[in-house]
């Protein structure tokens, strides 16, 4: 190893990393050269991850505001803050925004930023495709969100059941926006999945076998397979709806003998794996956080990996539990009821293993750790209400009522969002080179925890006491007023909690305490490099001999960590070749979005968009990824 390349004095620190010991904080934070062009043309996975993070936080706020309108309207009976039509747009967009524009991209932010760092790679397998995925997400997100200002937002529910969403019953542009938007966003996810599967299979550092991979990367790996296999199904289903709406085909036309259940099956064959896509990354983040703050390894790592894989498989076998009320017949109902019960087992096993990780540990309750424990507590609740849904006859009371709303908000907010917050507090230092404020973080956690329960726990009751879903108002005297008032109060409190978080986040970006390579004393490769990482990530690609390089690694692990944690060198000085910045992925993404939009406006636009896609795609494929080198 060429240790003579590194000169002391310019480096931040070069002590030998010790297990569990946080690295000392540097005096200053390295600022990377910025500039608009470097962001717009970036192919660096860390920058792309940062773009995802900011965009997704923005949409999280949008979705949250939509929720606040919903709760303001439903806080009492017979309210008319918004009209029925606007409410129906808002609840549709709340679901669509949170699933496709907030939670998935927040997970994508972590995939992008973290996976190469965790596996010891310099970037993902296809950096330009990576940028393309982001720009498609951004343009698709703007496309599907902006129409709400023109009273044209999608209004068929996030699940868009036919025949309500066929042209006959939804003649306006609202559902056109939905079908086009979903197709665009699907392309973003699919491209990213191809990228990450290839990256994880092919770019792991020497010595990093699959069973030595960090658990977040493992869960993300399963998620990418779910995306690759589930998204094409909804692509086809939505394509059928698009063809029906724009070109008069008969896929969902009742008069032609079509079966509305075709849509439901196609949607949920995608939709159920989708919810595992939403939760597994959060599970992965929690599995990184808890061991670090317990100062001991993840309990049952192999079981955590296998249960993740089993959940991925079984996730494709439970979809019709969203359809217990449609009359599939007793055999189908029984089969899907049983598979749904079955999937509770690997999920529950994870909960126990997390508890096992904390047990016997020396646990420090940093904000990240609090959110991780919060996920364990709240997901347990959501998982149990999920098991309650798994019994079809019982579900016939629960489904399409507020009980379901309670269930999925416990698993999505109490699960995914909690895990993502945990990940943000944990990885913020790595991303920005500064610490978030811990006191504000803890305030955020506790208000969030109380508010979340106050908002969603009463919904178990309003549901079982007869309140249907997706209603813009309800009558007085039905026994639902108190529970709804509680939920609305909790929702307002969530605004407070989230505001504190946002304030902390943005202030810490500029004023947080500088962070060293490993402020938490964690074990995995991303903590062996400076914070924020240099654009080449690792000065020397590490050789990995253990699952926890900084805790259990051998001499070579520690030495490469010692080298990598030193900053101050450029890629050029180290002889590392990085991909070119290029705007071509953005141009292809923009052309593709415009091409899709032509469906709604003008067919010449489709042609022009397609031509632009072809031109820019050719330019992209014909140009080299990186400078020639040997």
């Amino acid at each position, binding site marked *: 190893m060429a240790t003579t390349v590194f000169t002391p004095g310019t480096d931040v620190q070069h002590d030998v990393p010790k297990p569990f010991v946080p690295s000392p904080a540097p005096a200053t934070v390295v600022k990377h050269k910025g500039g608009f062009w470097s962001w717009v043309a970036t192919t660096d996975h860390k920058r792309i991850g940062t773009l995802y993070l900011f965009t997704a936080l923005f949409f999280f706020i949008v979705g949250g505001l939509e929720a606040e309108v919903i709760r303001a309207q439903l806080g009492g009976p017979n309210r008319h803050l918004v009209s029925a039509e606007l409410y129906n747009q808002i609840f549709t967009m709340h679901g669509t925004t949170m699933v496709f524009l907030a939670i998935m991209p927040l997970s994508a932010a972590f995939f992008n930023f973290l996976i190469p760092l965790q596996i010891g790679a310099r970037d993902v397998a296809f950096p330009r495709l990576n940028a393309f995925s982001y720009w498609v997400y951004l343009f698709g997100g703007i496309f599907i969100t902006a129409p709400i200002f023109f009273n044209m937002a999608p209004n068929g529910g996030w699940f868009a059941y036919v025949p309500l969403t066929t042209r006959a019953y939804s003649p306006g542009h609202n559902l056109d926006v939905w079908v086009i938007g979903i197709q665009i966003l699907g392309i973003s996810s699919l491209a990213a999945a191809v990228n990450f599967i*290839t990256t994880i299979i*092919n770019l792991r550092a020497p010595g990093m076998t699959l069973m030595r991979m960090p658990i977040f990367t493992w869960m993300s790996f399963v998620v990418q397979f779910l995306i690759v296999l589930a*998204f*094409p199904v909804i692509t086809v289903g939505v394509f059928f709806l698009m063809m029906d709406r724009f070109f008069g085909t*008969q*896929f969902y036309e009742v008069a*032609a*003998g079509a*079966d509305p259940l075709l849509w439901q099956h196609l949607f949920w064959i995608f939709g159920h794996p989708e919810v595992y896509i939403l939760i597994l990354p959060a599970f992965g983040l929690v599995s990184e956080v808890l061991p670090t703050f317990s100062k001991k390894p993840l309990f049952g790592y192999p079981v955590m990996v296998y249960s993740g894989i089993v959940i991925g498989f079984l996730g494709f076998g439970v979809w019709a539990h969203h359809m217990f009320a449609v009359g599939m017949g007793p055999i189908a109902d029984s089969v899907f009821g049983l598979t749904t019960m079955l999937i509770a087992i690997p999920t529950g096993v994870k909960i126990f293993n997390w508890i096992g990780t904390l047990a016997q540990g020396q646990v420090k309750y940093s904000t990240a750790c609090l959110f991780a424990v919060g996920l364990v507590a709240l997901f347990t609740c959501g998982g149990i209400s999920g098991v309650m849904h798994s019994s079809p006859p019982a579900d016939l009371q629960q489904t399409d009522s507020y009980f379901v709303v309670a269930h999925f908000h416990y698993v999505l907010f109490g699960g995914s969002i909690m895990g993502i917050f945990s990940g943000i507090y944990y990885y913020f230092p790595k991303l920005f080179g500064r610490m978030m404020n811990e006191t504000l973080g803890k305030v955020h956690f506790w208000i969030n925890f109380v508010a979340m329960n106050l908002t969603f726990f009463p919904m178990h009751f309003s549901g079982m006491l007869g309140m249907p879903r997706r209603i813009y108002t309800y009558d007085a005297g039905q026994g639902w007023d108190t529970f709804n008032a509680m939920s609305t109060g909790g929702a307002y409190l969530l605004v407070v909690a989230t505001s504190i978080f946002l304030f902390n986040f943005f202030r810490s970006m500029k004023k947080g305490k500088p962070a060293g390579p490993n402020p938490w004393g964690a074990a995995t490769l991303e903590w062996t490099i400076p914070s924020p990482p240099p654009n080449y990530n690792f000065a020397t690609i590490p050789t990995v001999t253990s699952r926890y390089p900084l805790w259990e690694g051998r001499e070579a692990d520690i030495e490469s960590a010692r080298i990598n944690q030193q900053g101050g060198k450029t890629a050029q000085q180290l002889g590392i070749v990085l991909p070119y910045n290029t705007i071509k992925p953005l141009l292809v993404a923009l052309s593709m979005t415009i091409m899709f939009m032509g469906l709604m406006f003008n067919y010449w636009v489709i042609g022009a968009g397609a031509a632009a896609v072809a031109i820019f795609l050719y330019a992209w494929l014909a140009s080299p990824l990186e400078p020639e080198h*040997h």
Partner: protein
Amino acid sequence: MSASTSHHYTTTGLDSRKIGIWTFIGSECMLFITLISTYLIYKGRSLVGPFPHEVWKDPSTGHVFHSILNIPVTSFSTFVLLMSSLAMVLALAAVENRSVPKRTLGDKILGSSKLWIFVTALLGTVFLSCQAYEFTSFVHEGLTIHTNLFGSSFFTLTGFHGAHVTVGVLWLLSLLVIDFKRGLNESDVLHVDIMALYWHFVDVVWIAIFTLVYLIK
């Protein structure tokens, strides 16, 4: 495809683009499985004809529609597509063995990547022409994409497949242009390999479609 080769270290020893195309093909499998499943679900459920394998008399006009699928023509086009896969195999072999000296005329013919890429593209185009002929004759006989569930699912399924073949033909032609301009050499083997993978996949999908849509009643 970018000219840079990846001499970077990889865990599997394979080029990342190889793994990428296999992953992409996995998603395409799900795409076609969904399209084919929809066709099979709606099989026999159209309220009006024409139908694929039966005769139908329109009660309102009295017009008689014979079973609309033309097995002989489609068998021919299937054969053509299968032969195109053979041509693709030869094209890839030709690029891989570029540096092997070719003595006989037979060797030269077999070793001409330009020839075999061209033949693949040509056979693909013949297949597409048969599809075009088939679609237009169906429309003349009264089956459009709007007519019934069969029409919608049939044209969408075969249309998706045809679009994939079209993309493949265009891709082949661009390879051919590169071959004429600077010649394909060892560094292009991966590119042609990926092309071949895609082409064979499209062929396999067609075999499934031909069997399930045309052959099975």
